């Protein structure tokens, strides 16, 4: 068993989401320090508001302001905050039923320790200094000892410049391991060798190997070195420059059946004008110093392969 390969893999993107009328009003309200609930047909007030009654599925849109003060309905002490959570210091997760609401809102409660938190305690919204129309406009909740406060003012501001969308950034960190078959393939590349795996049943050689024959559904284990030369089975001409890719357009991207392989892999074709690349062209890999895979493939100068030789690999 070769050493297990690992590499960091970060998946990160901003989700751009549009809002319906109810969510738009709610998040606009938060920006103006007003919390809005939505009234259901049976007279309950849901906070945070939704567009459909969760019991009857009736469409609802009757918005009413509720207080910035409320009562904790359940809580959990988080002694080790994680990335992205509302507070960087230990805090309580809380469900809070705001005064005037019949349901509870999830958020964080800033408290000195778990002994300072209990179900039934009174809390108040602490607004973020800068508010943009997002749930994080509520920085957190804080303990509150006074009377229920009236709903916030500023309702007039809600009609002006409503929030119609949010951008929700998401980032997840992984440590990617390619598994047994692909590790062997990558280890082979480090010695500039291309290693596939042969199916014990249909005898096809897969490259890069994934550890299974997709036709027969059986594990593949027999390693077979293929190439380095191969045949262009099909190709396309790329005319759009990819971001962060230092290759001039137009260039050719091709399927290449390496000699001895029963599956074409893909790579870029260089060393020949783009409009002279053709099916059957014989190519070989070009390695650059320190690279972990061929930079591109170039013509070998051999005569083109006969169509019958590669027609099964298209």
């Amino acid at each position, binding site marked *: 068993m070769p050493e297990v390969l690992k590499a960091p893999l970060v998946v990160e993107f901003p989700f751009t989401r549009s809002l319906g009328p109810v969510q738009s009003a709610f998040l606009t309200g938060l920006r103006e320090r007003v919390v809005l609930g939505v009234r259901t047909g049976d007279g309950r007030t849901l906070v945070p508001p939704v567009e459909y009654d969760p019991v009857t599925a009736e469409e609802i849109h009757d918005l009413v302001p509720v207080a910035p003060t409320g009562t904790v309905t359940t809580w959990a002490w988080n002694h080790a905050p994680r990335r992205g959570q509302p507070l960087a210091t230990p805090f309580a997760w809380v469900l809070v039923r705001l005064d005037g609401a019949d349901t509870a809102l999830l958020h964080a409660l800033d408290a000195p320790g778990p002994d300072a938190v209990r179900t039934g305690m009174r809390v108040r919204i602490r607004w973020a200094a800068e508010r943009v129309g997002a749930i994080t406009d509520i920085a957190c909740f804080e303990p509150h000892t006074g009377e229920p406060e009236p709903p916030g003012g500023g309702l007039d501001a809600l009609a002006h410049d409503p929030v119609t969308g949010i951008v929700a950034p*998401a980032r997840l*960190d992984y440590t990617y391991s390619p598994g047994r078959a692909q590790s062997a393939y990558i280890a082979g590349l480090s010695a500039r060798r291309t290693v596939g795996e042969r199916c014990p049943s249909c005898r096809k050689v897969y490259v890069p190997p994934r550890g299974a024959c997709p036709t027969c559904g059986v594990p593949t284990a027999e390693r077979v070195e293929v190439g380095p030369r191969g045949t262009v089975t099909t190709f396309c001409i790329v005319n759009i420059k990819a971001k962060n890719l230092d290759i001039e357009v137009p260039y050719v991207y091709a399927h290449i059946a390496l000699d001895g392989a029963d599956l074409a892999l893909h790579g870029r074709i260089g060393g020949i004008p783009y409009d002279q690349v053709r099916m059957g062209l014989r190519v070989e890999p070009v390695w650059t110093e320190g690279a972990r895979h061929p930079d591109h493939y170039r013509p070998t100068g051999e005569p083109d392969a006969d169509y019958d030789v590669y027609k099964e690999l298209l």
Partner: protein
Amino acid sequence: MTREEPPGRRDVAVVAFAQTDVARTTDELSEVEMLMPVLHSVLERTGLKTADIDFTCSGSSDYLAGRAFSFTLALDGVGAWPPISESHVEMDGAWALYEAWTKLLTGDADTALVYSYGKSSPGSLRDVLTRQLDPYYVAPLWPDSVALAALQAQALIDAGDTDEPALAAIGARSRRTATLNSHAQLRGSVPQGDYAVRPLRTGDCPPVGDGAAAVVLAAGERARELCSRPAWIRGVDHRVEAHSLGVRDLTDSPSTRLAAQRAGAFDRPVDTAELHAPFSSQEVVLRKALRLDDSVRVNLSGGALAANPVMAAGLIRIGEAAARIHRGDSDRALAHATSGPCLQQNLVAVLEGEPR
């Protein structure tokens, strides 16, 4: 049975079940490499080959793999060469089994292979699972799966339904019974540990692990040919709670109760129950919703507190229940699967063996 069956409904059974050992990491294996021994094992038990299977359905999640369409790579393991009748759910394999069951009920297929897998080890599961939450009001706060379960546990404690020692006893019992389950990740005595998110301690939380499972379903006579004592599926139903946590009574699970009722669970007593309760507090909720008393053997496999491979743990509950019927250790068993925070979605299956 007093419940009326639709006329002419076919009998469908679980005829084979296999699962991997569940481990904290399986870096040396890709998903398909982890899955393949299980697929071959479950087929071997029936004598079927991949080409004999009429319908294949799988469950998994791209968010675990950190990659789009990740299930297509695992499909290599079943010889998915066209034409193949195949489907996938971005959920626990229990829901894939539901789809396969309905497919067999229509008569379009006589046999089905259902599998699911999850490798939690490449990422941080607590963070990954935040991405399934309401993206407008909840996900931007990044409340992790343990935190949300802890809110539910505190609600149960406040309601007088349980307390911390009782929760600890559930975890301890699960790991004790898991000593008989060689596939389980945590077996025997495990310290109750420090608070993960209070009031839940590490002992109240499921181990994070990688694993896979597969079952074969067959209809009517085909099931009898493939298995000496088929685990006949008498009913399956799945229901979902309101999306917003603050709308729900976290101490109850009406969706589980309704699913159980529709699956026929309350028509006659069950002798065995496999509950997918990743957190000790959730077993309290499920026992109440399913009206399980001490006469029912609950989670003899050790349940999710002993091994919780995400996306496979629910299918494993059905598989474990079926395997007990296959072996003659149970005559009527209930299996439950859950998905989402605080028992958001719940599936209940009722399985029966014929009189011996």
